[in-house]
């Protein structure tokens, strides 16, 4: 008596023509392929239909599958030839869907703009809906991560990228597709024939995961000092300029500079009392509040950001002569009414009008500070950035989670604010979710008779159904790692989407 065999069927294919089938179920947005063997057909009645595997009164079905290709295969010693039809699951149509999305934008303070803040599940749901799915579930996704997307393109590519960033998996669940966390969901059933059961301490894993934000942004008031161009083009403080008049700048007047040699007068008009350069923090020194190291040179502040609070122009304030009829200076911390032009790369600040203060009835350098934003270029050349790690067991090296859309923002002027609390909270979620990828290393591979519902989950990596072909109907499945070497690997499947979606 022949061994009982499972039956696979597809819309339009006669059961008499069935010879065998294998169907590997994998995670991701790329459709799985069912290799369907049948007696050669002159034509196929339908190319889109329902794929089913049945055994012992138990049937599993997947709707809206599509024939991808067909070819003839010689099978000597068994039968002369057979037709092979490759049938893709419903995910074949996902790449046709497009989506436009603009979410999780952050304001100048580094915090999420409330109107654009959405959880990853909202993004995943939007992708799945765009791809025509209706019975999916994203309820198992983590919260507290807010990747920035301003995107218009293929929905499957976005979903894959979302899962990659937030450490989630797209898993087939019956005839639906869910998005789940690593380590969640059903494990391999205990009943069944164990093919492989071992736990490995993989070396190709990191021993640490790092959350790396974009360059930190600092905002404070920086002291300005009066400078000018020397005859060789270099920038010097005005007291050191070679064309400083013998009577000193304090005894000249900026509307004529008659005490300056004629050859240098144009240079004086251009720069004296108009050109300034950042020197240090207004209170003194180069220490940046909130930075990870103390700079040793003001050039480490460059380039400047000619903005404050993200959108407003940087401005100057201090003690200066407000160009009144009297030679009286403003009170301290008076905002200069005209915004200066800032050269971010050099830290030079130019005012349209000469800016002075009066000291003993004579013009003198004003006490000015520039309120602006800037980063810190550390001694090693990299920008100071928020960096947080979590340790893993075993492995080597660091897996870096790059999040340039997120950065530490610390303002100490005009008011103090920092996003360190929300930044740490979000980083912790990212780290925990990615650490979960390596938490469970117990690889196991098992076989089950028939076609019980064993689909990939946060623990189960892959399952494969086999029918016909002269063998018992089995469902083979593995946890943590995929086992089917004849199926494109997870990495290959992802790369295919990256490449296709980039066109």
């Amino acid at each position, binding site marked *: 008596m022949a061994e009982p065999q499972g039956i696979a069927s597809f819309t339009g294919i006669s059961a008499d023509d069935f010879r065998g089938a294998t169907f590997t179920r994998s995670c991701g947005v790329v459709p799985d392929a069912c290799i369907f063997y049948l007696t050669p057909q002159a034509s196929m009645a339908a190319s889109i239909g329902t794929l089913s595997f049945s055994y012992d009164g138990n049937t599993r079905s997947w709707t809206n599958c599509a024939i991808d290709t067909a070819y003839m295969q010689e099978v000597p010693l068994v039968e002369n030839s057979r037709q092979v039809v490759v049938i893709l699951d419903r995910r074949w149509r996902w790449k046709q869907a497009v989506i436009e999305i603009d979410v999780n934008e952050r304001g100048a303070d580094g915090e999420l703009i409330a109107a654009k803040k959405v959880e990853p599940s909202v993004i995943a749901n939007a992708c799945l809906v765009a791809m025509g799915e209706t019975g999916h579930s994203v309820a198992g996704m983590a919260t507290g991560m807010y990747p920035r997307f301003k995107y218009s393109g293929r929905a499957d590519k976005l979903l894959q990228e979302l899962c990659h960033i937030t450490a989630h998996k797209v898993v087939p669940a019956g005839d639906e597709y869910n998005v789940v966390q690593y380590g969640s969901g059903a494990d391999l059933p205990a009943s069944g024939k164990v093919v492989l059961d071992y736990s490995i301490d993989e070396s190709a894993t990191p021993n640490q995961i790092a959350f790396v934000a974009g360059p930190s942004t600092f905002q404070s008031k920086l002291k300005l000092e009066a400078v000018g161009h020397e005859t060789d083009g270099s920038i010097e403080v005005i007291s050191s300029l070679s064309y400083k008049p013998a009577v000193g700048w304090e005894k000249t*007047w900026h509307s004529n500079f*008659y005490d300056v040699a004629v050859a240098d007068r144009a240079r004086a008009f251009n720069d004296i009392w108009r050109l300034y350069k950042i020197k240090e923090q207004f209170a003194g020194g180069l220490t940046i509040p909130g930075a990870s190291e103390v700079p040793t040179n003001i050039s480490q502040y460059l380039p400047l950001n000619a903005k404050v609070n993200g959108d407003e122009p940087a401005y100057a304030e201090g003690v200066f002569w407000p*160009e009144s009829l009297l030679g009286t200076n403003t009170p301290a911390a008076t905002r200069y009414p005209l*915004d200066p032009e800032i050269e971010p790369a050099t830290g030079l600040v130019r005012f349209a009008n000469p800016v002075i203060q009066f000291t003993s009835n004579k*013009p003198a350098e004003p006490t000015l500070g520039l309120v602006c934003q800037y980063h810190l270029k550390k001694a090693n050349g990299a920008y100071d950035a928020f960096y947080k790690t979590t340790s893993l067991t075993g492995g080597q090296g660091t897996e870096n989670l790059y999040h340039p859309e997120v950065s530490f923002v610390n303002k100490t002027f005009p008011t103090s604010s920092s996003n360190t609390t929300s930044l740490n909270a979000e980083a912790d979620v990212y780290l925990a979710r990615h650490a979960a990828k390596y938490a469970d290393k117990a690889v196991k591979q098992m076989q089950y008779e028939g076609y019980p519902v064993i689909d990939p989950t946060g623990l189960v990596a892959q399952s494969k159904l086999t029918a016909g072909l002269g063998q018992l109907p089995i469902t083979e499945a593995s946890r943590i790692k995929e086992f089917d070497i004849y199926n494109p690997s997870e990495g290959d499947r992802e790369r295919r989407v990256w490449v296709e979606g980039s066109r």
Partner: protein
Amino acid sequence: MNNQGHLAPFNRVPWMDFKNTGATTIPPHGIIEIEESERSDTSSIEWLKGKRPTKSYVRVFAVNGPKEVEANGYGVCCQAGECYVKIDTGDIPGVGKIIGPKKDDFYGQMHHYGLVVTGDVNTSSSGLARVRFVPDTRNVVRFLNTSGVTCPFGSAMIIDGDLVTYLGEGIHYRIKQPTTDIQQLVLINLQEDVPDNEYGWACWLTEAPGWAAYDVAGGTPAKGNRYGIKQGQWTLAKNRYGFLVQSAAKTVNGVECINVLQTEVTRLRGKTDSAITKGSFGTVSIYDGAEIDTSINLTSVYNVFADLDSDKVVFIEELGGRWDIYAAEC
């Protein structure tokens, strides 16, 4: 570039570059006497040359900006619009008062001309007031002192000869100390101590009153008193004709002065010193309004009507350069 506001009005004032050609540092907001402008041939720029005022009446002056300017240093000054000027905290002007330069000083002084106080009078030690330049609309003229002696401030001067014009000095009058007791329109010196054979500025004081030196020997002047020239002296004498006192006396530039308005002398009251027959000339002693002999004797008064005896009251009128009797006591 976003403008967060307006800068204060410094740039709305027409500032001029100037050089301090004097030996004294010019303080902020000090008055400057302008000598001339100078041009740099090498850089095609011009500046005014100014210094501490050497006279109290300065035809062209300016006010220094907010920066002090040392000798031979450069600064900016204004000659129009509104600015702040130093004031004499010992004689504080009120809003609406006229102030102007003072000899050997940088402050705007009361009783001098050129600026009107518009407000913000600061009576602290810095002593500043906001002012506006006002044009001198008085009939100010140039004169050459040909009297042979120095002509002090406020002096009443009579014209000696015709108007003359010399290159560099323009039209001017030659003046001398009064040699008569009656004169149609005299000039009042606006400057301190103009030496003999030097030039100065004077005013008729016909459109508006001004300060003129008076003879203190005649007693304390009061508003409404009449003063006039007296031969042999620069000061105005009491109970004479030509000037009407407008306010109480004051010391101006170290000189005892009265504020007077000049009126043209064309009619006088007097008495015949001796008989004057019809059609001949005689001498009339001039009397004031209280019928007191002013001690002015007008000779060559013509009797056009009838023979007159001595000591008769007469009214005379100046017509075409001749004094005629137009009414007389019978």
